[in-house]
C-alpha cells in the first residue's frame, strides 16, 4: 500500500511536536502524536498541545526522520560500549512554564 515506513497495522506514523510558545523563544519539544500526514499532524498538534492558542508556532516532524545529535546518546541503548558510559545525560529541553524540574 505504502512505500513509507511501516505503519503498524494501519496505525498512523508518529510525529514529534515542537512549539514556540511566544515570540522570542525557541521551539521546544513538547511531545508526540500520531497523524496520517503532515497537515493532520499540524492540526492535531495545535489541538492537543496548544489547545488552539493562536499566535504560537508549531513544527512537526516524523519521528523516524530525526537523527540524534550525538552518537553516544544512541550507543548505550543500541550497542552498549563501555567507554561511552560516563557521559552527562542529555535532556530534552523543558518548557519554561514547567515548575521545579
Amino acid at each position, binding site marked *: 500500500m505504502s512505500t513509507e515506513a511501516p505503519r503498524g497495522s494501519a496505525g*498512523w506514523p508518529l510525529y514529534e511536536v515542537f512549539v514556540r510558545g511566544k515570540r522570542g523563544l525557541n521551539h521546544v519539544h513538547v511531545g508526540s*502524536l*500520531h*497523524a*496520517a500526514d503532515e*497537515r*493532520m499532524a499540524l*492540526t*492535531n498538534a495545535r*489541538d*492537543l498541545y496548544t*489547545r*488552539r*492558542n*493562536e499566535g504560537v508556532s508549531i513544527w512537526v516532524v516524523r519521528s523516524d526522520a530525526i537523527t540524534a545529535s550525538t552518537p553516544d546518546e544512541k550507543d548505550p541503548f543500541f550497542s552498549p560500549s563501555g567507554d561511552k558510559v560516563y557521559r552527562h545525560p542529555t535532556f530534552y529541553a523543558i518548557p519554561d512554564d514547567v*515548575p*521545579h524540574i
Partner: protein
Amino acid sequence: MSSDDDHVYLSLAEGHGDDARWAFGTGFEDPLHGVDTTLPEDVEAGAHAAFCLALADDALVAAQRLAQWITLAPELEEEVALANIGLDLLGQARLLYARAGQAEGAGRDEDALAYFRDPAEFRNVILAELPNGDFAHSMVKLLLLSSWRLAQLTRLAEHPDPVLAAVARKGVSELTYHRDHAAQWAIRLGDGTEESARRMREALAELWPYRAELYAAAPETRDEVEAVLAQVLDAARLEAPAETPVSMGRGRDGQHTEHLAELLAELQSVARADPEATW
C-alpha cells in the same frame, strides 16, 4: 509527604487568577469584553431576537451531535478535534442565546432558551439535527454546515448590533478551522480507500439535498458555499450528486424531524427533571 511535593501543589494553585478557565478550552477570553451591549435603535428587537435564536439553535444542536461522538471517534487525536469544534459551537450558542434573551426582553436566559423550549419552538436547520451516521456522514455534514455558517458569520461581522458582530468575528476564526477540518477529511476519505470513497458517496447522496434549506435561510451564502464545496469535491475526487428536489420540513419554521425531539429529550432530561434545581 516531602516538601518537594508541597512545592508542586503550591505551584498548581498559582496562576489561577482566571477562575473562568475551569478546563482548557473554556473561558480563555470574553469576546464581549469592552463591547457596548445596548441594542442599537435601528435594530428591531423582536426580529433580532428571533434571528439570534435561530443561529444559536443551529450551533447548540450541532454541538450536541458532536458531543455524541465523544469516546467513539475513529482515533484519539480526533476525539480532541471533535470536542474542540463542539466547544466552539457551544460557546457561540451561549452568547447568541444570551443576546436573543436580551433582545426579547422577557427575562429568558441561555438555559431557559436551551432547556425549556419544546422541539417546535426550535429554529435550527434540519441538517443540524440529523443523526451522526458514520464518520463520513458526520464530516460531510460538518463541511456543509461549517461552510454555510462561516459565510453567514463573515457577513455578520459587520452587523449593526455590536454584540452580534463581536460574536460573529470570534466565530469566523473558529468556523474557518471547522471547515478546514471537514474539508481535509472529505479529501482523505474521498481519495482514500474504496470503502471510504463509497461511504463518502453515500453520505453526499443523503445530505446534499439539505443544502436547499441552508440557502433558503441565508440566500446570500449560496455562491460562496457552492464554490467551496466544488473545490473540496474536486480535490476529494468525488462528484456532486445530481440535484434531486426533496420535500422536507423547514427547521426555521419549527418543522422538524423526529430526530430533534429525541435529541432534545436527552439534552433537556436532567434540567427538566427538577426545574427548581440550581446548577
